[in-house]
């Protein structure tokens, strides 16, 4: 590779756009949260965590994200392992069907669950027809429907991350373990699982941070008492016009995603050591 001063000229237009329209606006959002009457202060954060409603929203967000990540791992791991071991052509097919939802509008994807879980949705109408229930179940606008929507939203990401790592696990390693006396289960526990950890880390970070910051799904599938951080920012800003509170929630969201990403990466490097 060459050394060249002109390279900065190539980067300059992009840099200006990112600085002016990403870095500065974000900084101003974060900065105002620490601004008090007498210099810098943490009072707004203290107020946020003292408020039981706000605290509840924060804990709910983390809880739903954690639940979503766990379910995505449980569903994604065996599926990805299966995909990584089928023939190249079949694998291509599975990848198409995972990428397709990924590229489809999140509004469409969340909406489809409204059709399934709604009062007149498939599940309720089927159960009613079978006389298993007398009144439609409330399946929508609660934490349950948010988690389903988030799992549905992010499961393809988990599968992609895992397949990417698992398809590079050499078939020879599996055969080597078998020839040394390992049963199928032991091969999985002692060879495949440890080698899949990097994909698991990437997938978990993507799903967890994605769930913490998701707006569309909780907005459409959640109800008035299932507010999460993203919908809280929107409410504070657009309904209450409380810019300061919205900024505080926004900053907390950024700090949480950074912290969680850092934590998972730390955990993984300890696992590998």
């Amino acid at each position, binding site marked *: 590779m060459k050394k060249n001063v002109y390279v900065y000229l190539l980067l300059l237009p992009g840099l200006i756009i990112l600085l002016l329209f990403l870095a500065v606006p974000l900084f101003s959002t974060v900065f105002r949260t620490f601004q008090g009457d007498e210099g810098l202060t943490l009072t707004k954060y203290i107020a946020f965590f003292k408020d039981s409603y706000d605290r509840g929203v924060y804990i709910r967000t983390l809880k739903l994200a954690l639940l979503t990540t766990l379910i995505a791992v449980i569903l994604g791991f065996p599926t990805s392992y299966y995909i990584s071991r089928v023939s190249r052509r079949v694998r291509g097919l599975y990848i198409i069907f995972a990428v397709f939802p990924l*590229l489809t509008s999140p509004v*469409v994807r969340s*909406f489809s669950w409204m059709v399934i879980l709604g009062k007149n949705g498939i599940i309720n109408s089927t159960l009613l027809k079978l006389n298993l229930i007398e009144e439609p179940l409330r399946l929508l606008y609660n934490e349950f429907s948010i988690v389903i929507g988030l799992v549905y939203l992010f499961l393809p990401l988990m599968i992609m991350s895992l397949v990417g790592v698992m398809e590079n696990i050499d078939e020879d390693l599996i055969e080597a373990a078998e020839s040394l006396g390992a049963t199928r289960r032991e091969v999985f526990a002692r060879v495949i699982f440890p080698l899949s950890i990097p994909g698991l880390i990437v997938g978990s970070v993507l799903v967890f941070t994605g769930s913490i910051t998701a707006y569309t799904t909780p907005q459409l599938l959640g109800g008035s008492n299932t507010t999460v951080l993203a919908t809280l920012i929107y409410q504070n800003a657009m309904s209450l016009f409380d810019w300061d509170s919205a900024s505080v929630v926004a900053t907390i969201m950024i700090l949480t995603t950074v912290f969680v990403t850092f934590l998972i990466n730390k955990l993984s490097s300890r696992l590998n050591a």
Partner: protein
Amino acid sequence: MKGKGKFLTLFALLVYFFLIIPLIIITGAAFGTDEFLKFPPRGFSLKWLANIFKVEMFVRTFKISLEIAVLGTVLALLVGIPAAYGLSRYDFVGKNFLQGFFLSPVLVPGIVFGFSLLNFLVIKYEMPVYTSLLVGHTVIIMPYIIRVISSSLENFDYSIEEAAISLGASKLKTFFVIVLPNIASGVIAAFILAFINSFNNVPVSIFLTGPGISTLPIQMMSYVEYYFDPTIAALSVVLMAMTIILMFIIEKTLGLSYFTK
């Protein structure tokens, strides 16, 4: 093929059933005759598909979404291609940092970014909403452009470029005649990916709406809050058809295996 039992096969199929069935249900619901969303639908009609075009807001926001996505992608390509070229071709002080900086928009929560743009650009500096929406989208799709173009430049043999220069072509001309044609499929793929991400975006756009300005996904969200008829399902089918076409182009240019990297 070893290592896949019947249980595993069944498990994978069930998970894929979960991934696909909602989209099939929505498609089915779009072609029913009922006034309310139902599945399985009764009868078959195209009236909901036709109804999309009767809802004036859908037609208008579709145009805006299209405009923003195309303009934003073109803008991002204009600044992104030189940046990607500079980042993969040369070595310089602060390269790693700048690489990270160019990819950073993907790490910023969209809802936070959208709010910040509203706060800073629209309220503080009174920038028009439409312009803010455009720059917001340009920023969020920048990482897709940089990543895809960089990965196609990785496969580009720079000795071809040197050969052209040694034959007397200027650096600028070499870029347009030699480099660009060789990464053309990468540029197309970057365009498509960026386009999809801009077109589907909700969290940034939701803050940047104003009188007469909104995007299609935002309009769809507010529609389902008040109406529950199959028009949205029909619109979803149209969007999915669009996704299929775009996916086909990605497969032909970049290959869908890109998503597992």
